[in-house]
């Protein structure tokens, strides 16, 4: 299988006052198409930074990030937005749903800016995503009327609706109880198998490791296993 993402000698530093913190230190990493990968590491190990670089929402200080063989570090901001919209789905720890939009409208949101998707197709895709996450009955609910697990399922549907090549999930279960967390991971696994979508999620919850295909450990900004 070909690589969907590859990082070569990536260095990312942050400036915290007078101190320079090295989040990633010459990191090399690859994800193959269709993989379901968990990025495991303690807080501050660099897993969120790695996810942000792969998701095209941050820039490395050094090194190259390739997405489907395209060096995304060289892309303009506009092209990066386009890439995120077409190829990458995001699932956030805090769900990040738009509070004034209904479940249906939140899922529809990434398609609103797509000129290549007609209104009819948009509707079909949203309904299909709603069905995938089992929230058909809640389509007209505002997010604040839903439970944490339901909100995260809306976020998953929003990530799926654009039919992305890669879905990135940053601590998707951190704000959920363990039963709901397992349900969410099971749902992601099921979608990975059903849609053949590549998943990369980061977590520091060791209990989830056994439920994913590939586990990558990161420590002090380098891959350790």
């Amino acid at each position, binding site marked *: 299988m070909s690589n969907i993402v590859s990082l070569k000698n990536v260095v990312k530093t942050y400036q915290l006052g007078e101190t320079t913190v090295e989040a990633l230190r010459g990191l090399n990493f690859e994800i193959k198409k269709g993989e379901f990968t968990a990025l495991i590491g303690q807080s501050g190990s660099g897993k969120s930074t790695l996810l*942000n670089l792969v*998701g095209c*929402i*941050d820039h490395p200080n050094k090194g190259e990030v390739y997405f489907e063989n395209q060096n995304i570090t060289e892309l303009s*901001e*506009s092209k990066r*937005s*386009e890439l*995120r*919209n*077409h190829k990458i789905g*995001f699932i*956030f720890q*805090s769900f*990040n749903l*738009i*509070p*004034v*939009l209904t479940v249906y*409208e939140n899922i529809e*949101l*990434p398609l*609103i*800016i797509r000129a290549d998707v007609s209104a009819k197709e948009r509707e079909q895709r949203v309904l299909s995503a709603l069905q995938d996450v089992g929230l058909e009955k809640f389509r007209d609910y505002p997010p604040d009327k839903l439970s944490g697990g339901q909100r995260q399922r809306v976020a998953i549907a*929003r990530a799926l609706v*654009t039919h992305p090549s890669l879905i990135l999930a940053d601590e998707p279960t951190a704000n959920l109880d363990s039963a709901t967390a397992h349900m969410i991971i099971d749902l992601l696994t099921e979608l990975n198998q059903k849609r053949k979508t590549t998943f990369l999620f980061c977590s520091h919850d060791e209990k989830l490791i056994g439920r994913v295909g590939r586990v990558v450990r990161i420590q002090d900004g380098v891959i350790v296993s």
Partner: protein
Amino acid sequence: MMFYWKLAWRNLVRNRRRSLATASAIIAGYAGLNLLGGYILRVERHLRVNAIYVNRAGHLSIYKKDGLDRFLLKPKKYLITSDELKIINETLHDLPQVEFSTPSLMGVGLLGNGDKSVPFIATGIEPQAEQKAENHPELKKWAKELVSTRDKDDPYFTQVNPDAISITKDLGVLIGRNTPFQNLSAAQKDLQLAGLTYDGDLNAVNATLQFQHSTGFALTEDTSLRAPYSLLKSLYQTEGATSVAVFLDSTSSIKKTTQQLEQVFKDHHLNLEIYPFNNDKISLFYVGTMGFLYMMAGFFIFLIFTAAALSIVNSMTIGILERGREIGTLRAIGFQENDVAWIFTREGMLLTLTSLGIGLVLTQIVAALVNASNIRFRPPGIAGDMQFILTPDVWMCVMIAIPLFLISLASCYFVSQRLVKKPIVDLLVN
């Protein structure tokens, strides 16, 4: 497109407390500016119709060159001759924007009742023009207090009584005639006008005191006398005129008419000059008062605008800054920087337009209440009192709304533009 407007509206409703605070600033600022503008407009129109119709200056006054300054010193030299009057009248007759015109004769003299005499400054215009000026809708609309007591069927205007004169109430007191003059006996109405002809001889004519008028200004309220043009021609033994007053359909026709007349005067080698009503030599009070009012209004408008604009910018800035994570999310799922900036700009547009609409309604309500209250006051230099009326004009309100709208729009756009350019990862941890 509708999706964005829906999103903007819902966000405004969701943040209703802040939206209300911002809207209140816009509504109060806008209504305040409208009412201030409405007051200035009312004063300007009042003084304008006073200058044009009450003082019979017309929109344009045609004088012999330097005649405006020197006529009373050397009337014969600066008189517009009957030949010149003929050319002027023919020219004016052909201009469609001219509603009417009249030669005007000005002079000084003594008004006598057989026992005593008091000085007067007389203005004589043609009775038909007098009638048109007195009954002009603009005068009735903006300065009805200054419309004299005579009605349109009065013989003065039909020239049945060619020696009828009108004097001010204060001049009547000086000559021992109290208002209403219509109630005086025939003997009491008989007065004499005496003055020097333009050849320097003493002359006198009989006059009938028929009417009362007001000049609108305290300074001239005890000397003003109005008479038919023909009566003053007899008194001063002349066929000419001091000036010609030209009444136009609109003040916007002033420039065009002036250019047309200047060309005719040039072609006929006439040594005449034209003054608009807002020339300080014609209406010093109008120019002085409006200059002061505009300066004062400019200061207040600046203050209100600044306060309203700062309030809008402040409120919008806080509102947008608080929603950094939302902006980050939109950017992460593929919205371009401009797309996100326009979502917030739409919110500003909706809020401002709604506030301006409410502000407009509030303006009309306050103006109607003030006008219905019949508040009266006596402005400095004005004869008698006048009602405090607010007349916020629709176009004026629109002209005030446009910059407010643009300020609001610009503040939303630039604040959100600044924020959307921040790194997405920073926005997401907001």
